[in-house]
């Protein structure tokens, strides 16, 4: 597996961002749930992230306009929430639970194995764009510690020896 890390300078430069019809449709659906468009902020950011992996700076004014708030207000929200990604991520995002129950049941070993196999630290993406590694707070599966999520899939208990087989499921 690749040992190099993506650099900031490698961030793709986007020209002329436009929401897709799909994204617009999903945002409009979310708007129907609330009496105030601002409440659809997270739903709208997620609609974009779901399709593009992350939320580029250029997307913020477009999304803000779609829900009727200012870009600055949406930026405040987009930078507050840890699961809205503002830099590109790999095809798969690994979220390793680093809270107390997993800390007591093998978190250090699990994280160490992931770092070793992927050759990256938290917040980094493998140069083949396959995996991004992130810590996450308690996944609510403490009876299965040590736990991690890859995309929407929950794994636990994960022993270091299980790691390569689990990673192998993700292309």
């Amino acid at each position, binding site marked *: 597996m690749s040992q190099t890390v993506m650099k900031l300078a490698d961030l793709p430069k986007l020209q002329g961002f436009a929401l897709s019809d799909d994204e617009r449709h999903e945002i409009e659906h979310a708007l129907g749930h609330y009496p105030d468009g601002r409440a659809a902020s997270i739903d709208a950011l997620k609609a974009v992230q779901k399709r593009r992996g992350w939320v580029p700076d250029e997307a913020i004014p477009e999304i803000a306009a779609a829900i009727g708030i200012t870009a600055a207000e949406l930026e405040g929200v987009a930078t507050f929430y840890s699961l809205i990604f503002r830099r590109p991520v790999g095809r798969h995002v690994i979220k390793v639970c680093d809270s*107390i129950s997993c800390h007591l049941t093998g978190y250090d070993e699990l994280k160490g194995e992931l770092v070793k196999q992927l050759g990256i630290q938290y917040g980094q993406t493998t140069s083949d764009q396959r995996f991004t590694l992130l810590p996450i707070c308690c996944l609510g599966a403490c009876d299965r510690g040590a736990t991690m999520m890859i995309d929407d899939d929950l794994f636990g208990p994960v022993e270091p020896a299980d790691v390569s087989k689990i990673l192998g499921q993700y292309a």
Partner: protein
Amino acid sequence: MTLRSASDAQYQRPLTRLIDVAAGPLWLQGHEAEGGYQALKQVVKEFKPQEVQAKVKDANLRGRGGAGFPTGIKWSLIPMGPDAGTKYLVCNADEMEPGTFKDRLLMEQTPHSLVESMATAAYAIGAQTGYIFLRGEYVVAAERLNRAIDEAKAGGYLGKNILGGGWSFELYVHTGAGRYICGEETALINSLEGRRANPRAKPPFPQIAGLWGRPTIVNNVETLCNIPHIVLNGADWFKSLNQGKSKDAGTKLYGCSGRANKPGCWELPIGTTARELLEVHAGGMRGGKKLKAWLPGGASTDFLLPEHLDLAMDFDTIAKAGSRMGTGLITVVAEDQSIVSAVRNLEEFFARESCGWCTPCRDGLPWSVKMLLAIERGEGVPEDLDQLAKLTRWLGPGKTFCAHAPGAMEPLQSALKYFRAEFEAGIPACSLPQAGDTCHLPDSGRRPAAKPPNAAPASVS
């Protein structure tokens, strides 16, 4: 239809009796066949909203999200009557308290129970719209709750003119995007409105001015799931569920995680002892190790010791012992595990999850982590102990905007109280022979005492 009766032995576990993890959740027909939506039918046809409120108050149901506030009293503060206008019911399903994994079970395995519970509770408080504020990582729960909501709508249990009673209620799942602070009631409301999850000042309380300034009730998943059973079987039945083990009423979803043999989550009479949780249900400590300490109900509760295992796990008893029951899912630490390291892990969590709104929390928590890391590496200085003790006061109740920092100080203050020697062992100056029992030597000079992050320069002249 096999509507279970209150005398049915299995009905002593009302919240989990329909759960069969291997078989998966009951969908609408199966849920109805087991007595589902009977409570909603009953309240819409036979009860006035205030009568439902009275039942819940009489039942002495206390909030299961961690604080234990009486649900009936919370509800009684919401304006009622024809002029009350728009009101909201919000389910706090942002289960993110480290060590807690009970609401996930209810939402994934019995989604219709929460949907029915919310409709029933909404009727009681006169809410027209409800939101389930679900943490983003609970993708299975989101999918199942959305399916249950669609089915309930098709079945006439949600939407317009529910069961022909002339009352309408719309229910939506709102998924979050991380941040533990969203579990704080007023931060949750800000987040739901599409703002940063900073807590709000209280008063006004959400019951008066909550979501979009309207009267709002925020209840935890487990709390809500008790409502239909209280409606069907009455307050006296609910009070009897504790089997005489506690002053509190009902059952509780307890659990055990950490270094236990068989970690899990179980519905038991409220007031069950922690010893029963650990030794009977969780099969004792893993690898024959001894128990060193335990958190009664999440990261924001004070550590207790093995000598506290026989206490009833209820709100008042655990509070008397100097901790809080919190969410009621215990986390156990084994004799060979480091308390300093555990506390460092806990404070790192709280530091990262602070919303940054107020200074003691934003700056104090990273400061505590800095000192704990130094002690963990064996590079602590004697001042660290005093400074950590001071932080437990500076970040304590009343010093910050919300309960985040005071909660963070609970495991720290209790660890300092019970395991001081372990902290001293990480401070070289304390382990010199002449230091005696307590650490009083001046700074050894190995490391300057940790300063708060972003501390102002000593002199600006």
